[in-house]
């Protein structure tokens, strides 16, 4: 069993939430929490090493029907994937672009990340998502439930019944046992069910009279605020991935003025130009607008060159991508709620479009002034695999290295980006902010992302010097999860079980009875079997509301 007390001594600590910037400090741990001091127990000598709060991923796709569909679609990727061999006490697994459940836990922990937010869960298949998350070891998890194309919610917003809409959203969150609300391509996924899209924010969604993407965004942002959810509405803007979508993104920020919101994978929403031939980075415009909106947080959704599988509730985009690549495509529409498209994709440095995407993600992270408001993600697996985060960290910390990389990309792309002009270099403290402190704060997880007393003892200890590739963050020397040494020298040493954060926002008692007849018309399963029973969420941790 794990020791109940542990000390980490002599390391340089980066804990920006508590104003600690590289000071040599001891860290004391008791019963999985960070405390002032302990007597006895194991001591880890971290002299010469650097200590970070365990990483927090604000936006990733690690479990659920769509990801599992992707796994089935790309068996070839597993053949070249990292292998985790079965050992007593440790399950087998495969890494690659869509790691299996066990491997997901090992890879995140192995990299020093201890909390992950699964960013897209339909209510209808929430039971499945939780089943999968059961099998993701070590790390703590949370989920966001998809809401911006749920027809019950859209109908209520169209009718102006915001109060009722709030109760329905609250009921659905608890039915799904989710932690927050995700809005994907508001209205567009719904329209896709007729093979259409929602491109213009102020035009009615197909099939509705007055409801527009804008009113959906406003409505959901207000509901999430009113419910006091720890994490604001998590918005995947309209027109993802399309040249010229900068206008939509900036307009979305205007719609959100005065509201809390998290804009997901901003890179995919920061393009100028009119078409693929003229596409350019619009990171400057987007970052400028974003800097002026302190109510917002975002994550990079950075792109790394290489294999990926794109996987999003944005069905129309995926069909377009399928037609562009002519390779594999899967689509999965979920009655009444959402849909999902899956297309394997390779980002190539010699491709103009891909090179612009690669630069745009980095530019956003360098142009957004406040590191607390921009989080490190690749929108795994869409822009690249989460286990490649250390590559991005190096790019952020080393302007010279960025310039070297710029020489590899399609020459034409260099005219479409500003990355070469950006000299900013992230400090270790900045890295601690964008990988842990910032996302934890955005998610409202008060005991995550820092190393103050009372925090969860999720601690990542890196060797003090970079590896042969100049990457400091490839292999942590130790990773502690809940005070237990789960990773040592890159090897999984202990397989623990993580928690799952959920919220239980209040909804009017009549909500279920209001929904029942609607449900019975729209769905093919029994209403009684729709909500996920709380007993089925292993390690459920129901969080307080604001």
């Amino acid at each position, binding site marked *: 069993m794990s020791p109940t007390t542990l000390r980490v001594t002599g390391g340089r600590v980066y804990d920006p939430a508590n104003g600690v910037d590289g000071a040599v400090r001891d860290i004391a741990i008791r019963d999985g929490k960070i405390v002032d001091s302990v007597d006895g127990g194991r001591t880890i000598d971290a002299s010469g090493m650097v200590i970070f709060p365990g990483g927090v991923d604000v936006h990733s796709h690690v479990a659920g029907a769509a990801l599992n569909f992707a796994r089935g679609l790309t068996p070839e990727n*597993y053949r070249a*994937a990292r292998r*985790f*061999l*079965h050992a007593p006490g440790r399950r087998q697994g495969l890494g690659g672009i869509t790691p299996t459940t066990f491997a997901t836990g090992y890879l995140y922990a192995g990299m020093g990340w201890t909390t992950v937010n699964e960013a897209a869960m339909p209510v*209808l298949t929430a039971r499945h998502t939780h*089943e999968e998350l059961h099998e993701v070891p070590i790390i703590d998890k949370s989920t966001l439930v998809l809401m911006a194309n749920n027809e019950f919610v859209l109908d209520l917003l169209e009718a102006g019944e915001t109060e009722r809409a709030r109760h329905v959203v609250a009921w659905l969150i608890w039915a799904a046992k989710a932690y927050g609300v995700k809005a994907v391509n508001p209205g567009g996924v719904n329209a896709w069910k007729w093979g259409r899209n929602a491109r213009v924010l102020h035009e009615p969604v197909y099939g509705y009279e007055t409801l527009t993407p804008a009113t959906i965004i406003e409505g959901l942002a207000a509901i999430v605020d009113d419910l006091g959810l720890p994490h604001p509405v998590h918005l995947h803007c309209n027109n993802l991935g399309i040249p010229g979508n900068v206008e939509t993104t900036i307009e979305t920020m205007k719609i959100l003025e005065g509201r809390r919101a998290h804009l997901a994978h901003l890179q995919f929403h920061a393009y100028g130009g009119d078409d693929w031939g003229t596409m350019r980075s619009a990171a400057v415009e987007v970052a400028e607008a974003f800097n002026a909106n302190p109510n917002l947080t975002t994550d990079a959704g950075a792109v790394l060159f290489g294999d990926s599988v794109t996987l999003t509730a944005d069905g129309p985009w995926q069909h377009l991508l399928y037609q562009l690549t002519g*390779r*594999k495509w899967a689509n999965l529409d979920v009655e009444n709620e959402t849909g999902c498209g899956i297309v394997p994709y390779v980002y190539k440095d010699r491709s103009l479009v891909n090179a612009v995407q690669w630069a745009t993600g980095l530019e956003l992270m360098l142009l957004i002034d406040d590191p607390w408001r921009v989080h490190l993600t690749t929108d795994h697996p869409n822009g690249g695999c989460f286990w490649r985060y250390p590559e991005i960290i190096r790019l952020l910390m080393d302007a010279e290295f960025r310039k070297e990389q710029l020489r590899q990309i399609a020459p034409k792309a260099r005219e479409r980006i500003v990355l070469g002009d950006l000299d900013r270099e992230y400090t270790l403290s900045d890295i601690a902010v964008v990988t842990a402190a910032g996302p934890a704060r955005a998610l409202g997880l008060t005991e995550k992302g820092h190393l103050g007393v009372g925090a969860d003892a999720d601690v990542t200890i890196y060797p003090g010097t970079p590896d042969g590739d100049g990457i400091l963050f490839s292999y942590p020397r130790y990773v502690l999860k809940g005070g237990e040494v789960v990773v040592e020298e890159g090897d999984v040493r202990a397989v623990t079980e993580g928690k799952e954060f959920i919220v239980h926002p209040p909804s009017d008692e009549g909500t279920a009875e209001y929904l029942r007849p609607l449900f019975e018309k729209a769905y093919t399963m029994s209403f009684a079997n729709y909500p996920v029973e709380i007993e089925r969420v292993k390690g459920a941790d129901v969080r307080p509301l604001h």
Partner: protein
Amino acid sequence: MGGKVSCTLGEVTNRADFIIFWGGNPAECHPRHFTKYSLTPKGRFVPDGRKGRTAVLVDIRETPSAKAADIFLQLRPSKDFEVLTTLRALIKDQRVDPAAVAETGLTLEQLQDLVDRMKKARFGAMFFGMGLSMTRGKHMNSGALLNLAAEMNAFTKFVCMPMRGHGNVTGADVVLRYTTGYPFGVNLSRGYPRYNPGEFSTVDLLVRGDNDAAFILGADPGATMPQPAIEHLASIPTIVLDPKVTHTSRLSRVHITTAVTGVSAPGTAYRMDEIPLPLAPALRSPYPTDEEVVRRIRRAVARRPAWQPVDENVRSAIA
């Protein structure tokens, strides 16, 4: 390179105005498919229910399901692939050889008419059964239909899904995918998952005599598999978990009686559209559940010297 375009059954109920059943006989094998999901129910965008939908049945013989269809297309046995491939060409306005088409039992005019109707649909759905996926061509036949559905999305909305058969076979697919990355036929003998349909599929393994022990649950291969496979099962230590003493039990070394899924054993099962549903048993079985027994066997295995796979750095092997 193809695609898999699917949806939950509720989407079909609510939206599909054109439905094709291919190589299946839902009326007898999935009796409530027509009435609960696909044909007769009124849907949100199909308010007239059955009247609002056109149903096509494609099969080699006129099953009772044909009566429920508006159009019945009878093709000759083992011509599914030819017909589907022709349809893929026709939707793209490509030329095909009418004489070769006629050998399928259907005429070019019939297929062109089908394509015209498909393109006019607002939301098309295709379901296929074992009459497609288990006849000559097998997974390529289902692949042909899946590709046709995917390609139809260039013209209108189309989805396609298999009419999965027994019980929770869909759940097995789902569970294997998230735990091992692969949907079936997963070889864990090197300590990590390997996948190669045709090599690590049960019938192939058994017919080749590759296995030296077998553990069977939730199936009765002794009643359904080809004879050489059954003979091999009988020749090796076979262990069976089943609520009844089955054909497989009789050729096995160990049989353990277990509770009946969904009747006296709780848990989760997946519908053919990968919707997970909770099971609500009405009876309390005198027997343990499969879950309990497998866990006990696993623990009993764990008490024995651990098999510890080693990293393979050496090439060439017997698998």
